[in-house]
């Protein structure tokens, strides 16, 4: 292909506590090149001070998530030929999270909100009791299984405009996990969880704009999960006598 060897114009966000801004690099185009390949090339050949995160580089861990031309994506699974526009690329850290340095964000609030939404499994049995028999065809297990594959990459968190506008908002990932656990018959924390997602940062702030569903690399649907939480909380509200 004629593309290999050409130079691309790549802007990369830099921040080191002293200055912030986009740095420009000229990166050689290659066959089958991913954005992660581009960032790695820059660090290895142009600027060794560039900080970024990755781990598996095969689309399983979610560590390499960044904003690529304005969209939150896994950089190891984003081919340059799919996103290159006018021979240009713009790479920035995930939106809605504080930046530690360059392309590395501080994920603390993301995980704190996961816990605050009771995205934590509360078991009701001991190891001495028999295993819980789970029917995989039951409606609850189908819901839980549909939501369970979240690997906490924060792409949805970066995509969500409610997260951007409401600092208290727990976010799509945390709420999606809460929904998965609401549907887990082995979990014993149902009413605490419904309370946890009913505050000023809770599920009722979701406007169903669907950016989360649009961008989740695991094709999860937090919009649907959050709608489920809305139904569950309203049912509980009227069930308890209002």
């Amino acid at each position, binding site marked *: 292909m004629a593309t290999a060897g050409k130079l691309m114009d790549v802007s990369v966000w830099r921040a080191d506590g002293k200055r912030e801004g986009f740095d420009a690099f000229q990166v050689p185009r290659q066959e089958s090149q991913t954005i992660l390949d581009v960032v790695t090339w820059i660090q290895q050949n142009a600027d060794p001070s560039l900080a970024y995160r990755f781990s598996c580089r095969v689309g399983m861990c979610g560590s390499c998530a960044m904003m690529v031309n304005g969209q939150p994506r896994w950089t190891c699974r984003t081919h340059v030929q799919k996103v290159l526009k006018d021979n240009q690329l713009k790479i920035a850290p995930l939106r809605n999270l504080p930046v530690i340095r360059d392309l590395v964000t501080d994920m603390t609030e993301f995980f704190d909100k996961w816990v605050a939404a009771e995205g934590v499994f509360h078991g009701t049995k001991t190891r001495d009791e028999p295993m819980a028999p789970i029917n995989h065809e039951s409606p609850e297990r189908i819901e839980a299984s549909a939501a369970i594959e979240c690997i906490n990459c924060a792409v949805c968190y970066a995509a969500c405009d409610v997260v951007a506008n409401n600092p208290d908002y727990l976010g799509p990932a945390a709420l999606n996990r809460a929904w998965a656990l609401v549907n887990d018959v082995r979990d014993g924390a149902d009413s605490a969880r419904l309370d946890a997602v009913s505050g*000023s940062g809770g599920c009722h702030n979701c406007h169903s704009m669907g950016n989360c569903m649009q961008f989740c690399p695991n094709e999860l649907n937090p919009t649907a999960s959050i709608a489920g939480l809305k139904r569950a909380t309203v049912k509980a509200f009227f069930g308890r006598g209002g």
Partner: protein
Amino acid sequence: MLDLKLYILQRATALAMAPFMVAHLAVMIYAVQGGLSASEILGRTQGSVGWALFYGLFVLAASIHGSIGVRVIASEWLGLKRGPAGIVMATVFLVLLTMGARAVWAVTMG
């Protein structure tokens, strides 16, 4: 900024307004034919307890629904915190309710 109670109030008033909306749109499409005039409108509504109840309830629901909606916009787009956003909500509620109630009175009982 919406918690469970405000959310339920928002959605409940929305649902409650659905039949009012359909009726209002139908009446407007009927009424606007041949041009509008005060006497034509008032001829239909004056002295009518039915219209007073209809539009009275509509105004109440719309005031609740609209004020909660504006509160969300004030907190998400203007960054207002809980206190000031609550004041905005209360103000919008009172304006819509008082002006709406006056309008209902004006066309039915006035």
